């Protein structure tokens, strides 16, 4: 398993070298701009759609349940971040990200409150762990995207409870999509802020983000299979919460 993970890291590292670091950076910029625009749009309740006018106003209203779900998601995520950090998969490169197990499915189950919760957990996690820095800004935006993709791609309770077979396939495809988007966004920002040399950013950080997060999220559908119906019973799922109209 360790050898497989190391070869996977090597593969993504070679891929980055093949595209060239400049090419990767340009690709990262091309992806980062719409990702940032969509993020800012959601802050003001404007949601991106694939047809004109491309951004539509969504009616949302905070209520007690939504506030509680934001806090729960963030607190759980911070705790699992600390738990996962002790399990080293490849020394110095990959640790088990237990928080990915809830970050991915929570976006689908609890909707936007969980998306904001995941983002806040990143800031609080960095602050409490003593790693808050300029890189944390990109970190919290990609964390937001982690749950946001699932919020957008999953709609019905059968889907987010993983009762349908295709929901599992969709889960892994969405996770892979995030792994690339997140890795590109983070590395582009690292290069922009000059936090690490370009070679290190694209040959070490880029593959590590992809592999670490994908491995961490592997068992997410099992978590969703149990938590989805339970959330519905407690009246905390995205349909029951009534945070979003329509």
């Amino acid at each position, binding site marked *: 398993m360790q050898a497989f993970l190391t070869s996977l890291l090597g593969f993504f590292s070679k891929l980055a070298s093949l595209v060239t670091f400049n090419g990767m950076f340009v690709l990262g910029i091309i992806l980062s701009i719409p990702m940032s625009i969509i993020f800012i749009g959601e802050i003001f309740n404007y949601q991106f759609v694939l047809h004109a006018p491309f951004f539509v106003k969504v009616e949302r209203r*905070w209520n007690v349940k939504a506030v509680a779900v934001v806090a729960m998601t963030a607190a759980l995520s911070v705790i699992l971040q600390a738990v996962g950090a002790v399990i080293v998969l490849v020394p110095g490169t990959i640790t088990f990200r237990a928080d990915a197990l809830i970050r991915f499915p929570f976006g689908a189950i609890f909707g936007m409150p969980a998306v904001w919760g995941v983002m806040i957990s990143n800031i609080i996690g960095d602050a409490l762990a003593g790693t808050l820095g300029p890189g944390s800004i990109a970190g919290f935006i990609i964390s937001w995207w982690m749950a946001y993709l699932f919020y957008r791609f999953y709609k019905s309770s059968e889907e987010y409870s993983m009762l349908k077979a295709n929901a599992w396939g969709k889960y892994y495809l969405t996770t892979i999509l995030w792994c690339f988007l997140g890795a590109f966004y983070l590395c582009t920002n690292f290069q922009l802020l000059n936090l690490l040399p370009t070679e290190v950013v694209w040959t070490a950080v880029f593959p590590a983000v992809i592999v670490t997060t994908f491995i961490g999220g592997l068992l997410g559908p099992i978590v969703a299979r149990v938590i989805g119906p339970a959330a519905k019973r407690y009246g905390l799922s995205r349909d029951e919460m009534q945070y979003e109209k329509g």
Partner: protein
Amino acid sequence: MSSIRTSFYEGNESFLSRIDPRIKLLYILWVFAMIMVFTDPVFQSFTMASLLLASIAGGLSLGKVVNAGKLGIYVGLTSWVIWTIFLRNEGVPLFHVFGWSVTDYGVLKGLSVALRITSVLFAFLIVAMTTPTRDIITGLYGLRVSMVFSMVIGIILRLIPQFQSEHSTIMEAQRSRATEFDKGGLITRFRKHTAYIIPLTLRALKIVSDLSIAMESRAYDPYTPRTFVRELKMKRSDKVILISMAVFLVFSILLRIFGFGVLQLGLLGSGQ
């Protein structure tokens, strides 16, 4: 799992602890802006000096501040070393280690990045060590940060210890059922982790469901303005600090526009 620290507050009575929490929160943003404006460590050292001054004004022991931020220092130092290695062929060689040159450009570039990485962290730590969590939340509200966000931060900091204790109980229960989390191959160990993640999440759902009922029964409405036991009021010293920060920031941006504060070659070496 080692316990997660949810408050850094030291409880010392000092000049900094009496400063309005809004000013202290703005100070973190100021440090971020100031450290990003310059790339020359000489200019960045002004911001670092302000951090030293702030920790003295907060009556904080430097050892404690450094200890709280040791992980950040480790990240900063690693970045410094990596930059020094990667820029070994640029700039004036200062000395050689194992046949590799250590150049002035590598050292200064690495130092500049390390200062960027650590400064915001130390600004946060100094503020957190001199401000109770309650005041930080009041400060956020005073800065017109969304009421929901300020409220959520408060709830999270209370939920973390509660979830941590639930986590420990679940882990003990699973161990008593002979679950060995650190035995087996990687995939087996992965799978075993769902044995505490799922029960923990289910407990969290119950806790949060009870919490929302309690908040609802107290007629909590996120859109109604809150009242606070301690009303924030800026003193003359707060205003002086705020104006000084604004003046220094504008001055720094102007300096940078006129070409000062940019990292140059030959600063440490024999001159290029």
